[in-house]
């Protein structure tokens, strides 16, 4: 029997049976037993060791590792009013968590856990390094090479979740005022309630923050906020 006719026959047999587990099913890793993973037996063909520089996918990484330039990271807040921070000469091993910490400190003692770092509108997990991010998004928007300096600029967006500014810290008076004037959570924390909350811009900003965190898609979150807000506004407009 040819491969094709067997496959056809098999699919027919398959169709007669109900699906019991979906193709994207995942057993919760918290229930794995305490042991290492099973892997298949070793192959006779040992993997060749690459010599530097690494292969295509890693070329961005190797460029970045070049001692000359280093990476310049720009952290742009999504909401105007918060400072944009530039971190020159970062190592490619710098993790997203390091970026959060740097932003938190430089913006005047924000709470690291309330900061999200986004790349191409998607939140990036703490454990990723700049090299990982570059290897993935090779040539994506927000990366530019300055001609002569051989310096790579990586741009991230920063999203501050409600309460990000809540951590008090020994910053200078001036910095502090900056934060207070822009802190998204401040008015909410002081306890407006009921409809007042809904009328304030902050609420919708916070809601969007939550949706972004949950859905991990900026466009979709923005759309949803508009839908919610539109619906709420039209419901209050009508008697």
């Amino acid at each position: 029997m040819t491969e094709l006719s067997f496959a056809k026959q098999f699919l027919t047999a398959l169709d007669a049976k109900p699906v019991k587990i979906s193709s994207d099913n995942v057993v919760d890793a918290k229930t794995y037993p305490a042991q290492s993973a099973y892997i298949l037996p070793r192959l006779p063909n040992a993997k060749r060791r690459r010599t530097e520089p690494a292969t295509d996918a890693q070329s961005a990484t190797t460029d970045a590792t070049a001692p000359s330039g280093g990476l310049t990271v720009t952290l742009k807040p999504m909401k105007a009013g918060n400072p944009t921070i530039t971190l020159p000469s970062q190592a490619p091993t710098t993790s997203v968590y390091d970026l959060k910490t740097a932003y938190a400190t430089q913006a005047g003692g924000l709470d690291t856990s309330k900061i999200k770092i986004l790349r191409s509108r998607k939140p990036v997990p703490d454990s990723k390094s700049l090299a990982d991010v570059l290897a993935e998004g090779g040539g994506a928007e927000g990366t530019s090479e300055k001609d002569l300096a051989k310096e790579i600029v990586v741009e991230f967006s920063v999203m501050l979740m409600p309460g990000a500014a809540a951590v008090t810290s020994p910053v200078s008076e001036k910095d502090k005022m900056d934060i207070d004037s822009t802190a998204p959570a401040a008015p909410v924390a002081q306890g407006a309630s009921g409809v007042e909350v809904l009328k304030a811009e902050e609420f919708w900003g916070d809601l969007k923050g939550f949706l972004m965190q949950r859905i991990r898609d900026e466009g979709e979150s923005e759309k949803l906020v508009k839908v919610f807000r539109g619906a709420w506004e039209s419901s209050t407009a009508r008697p």
Partner: protein
Amino acid sequence: MSSKIEKTIARQQEKVKEGQFYEAHQQLRVIASRYTKSSQHDSAIEILSSGAQLLLKAGQGGSGGDLAMYMLDVYNKAEVKPDAASKARILSVLRAFPKNEPTKKKFVNEMIAWSARLGEYPAGDPELHHVAGVLYADEDEPYDAERHLILGTKDSPEYLARMEYDWYTEDESQTAPVYVSRAVLPYLLTGNLRAANKAFLLFTSRLSSSTPGPVVQEVSSSSSDLRVYPTLPLLNFLGLLLLAVQRGEASLFRMLKTHYAAHLKELGGAWDEALAQIGEMYFGIKIPSQSNPLFDMMGNMLMGGMKSGKKDKAKPRGANSPAPPALD
């Protein structure tokens, strides 16, 4: 970081710059142990993580690795829990290790052990597994990379598929199924159907777009579409297996094994153990004598969740098999 610690680190940084590695290593060790003795664990960890990174980045794998291990010691002693900050610190140290540094393996194993002991994941934290696996893949250590990426995050299948494919390109063209199976079968054995499918899809798309690519034929039925590779029968075996596990029907699994028996034999038994386990986990075909707690448990979860009670499942493994609700 307190200014006192900052000063200490700055001083040692000078030493490292001047090439006085031994001295820097010894002093950092002494300072850290003074902090641990007085239960100032946070300070000890600061010193050790900064110190380890200084030495590792200067190419001093031995002494840097020693401080890194010491840091994990303190993590364990102080019962530091795995959270964003504690994991980030570990990963910064891990990434500072020079490529193919021998002490790194020990550090990776210890870090996984720490996360298993004090965190929520008995087999180790998926994020830590993922980063370790990616680093190993980058260093062309395929077996270590597999071991960690199999237990990694949802990003892991992409890296694993890429590594297996790169490895495959160093071998004969008809060996493609052997390489993709190294991702697909272990993912199935960890109950991660999503990752198994993703790795298979990524590998085969790359294969199809390679030149000269294999011959491909498309087959469709009312519920499934499949690419058939007439020259790569075992690749079809894997593709059909991924569809069959969703149905959990023993007859389907037997049909596959019969049709591909000759090809499977050519592998010299490389898939036998994995397939026997998959037969038990997904299709309820009991293996006469085996006692691997991982497979036992995964089998219970999948079979229990599916409430499949076919004849060939001799008896339900009663005692330890409450169907966990976490299946979906």
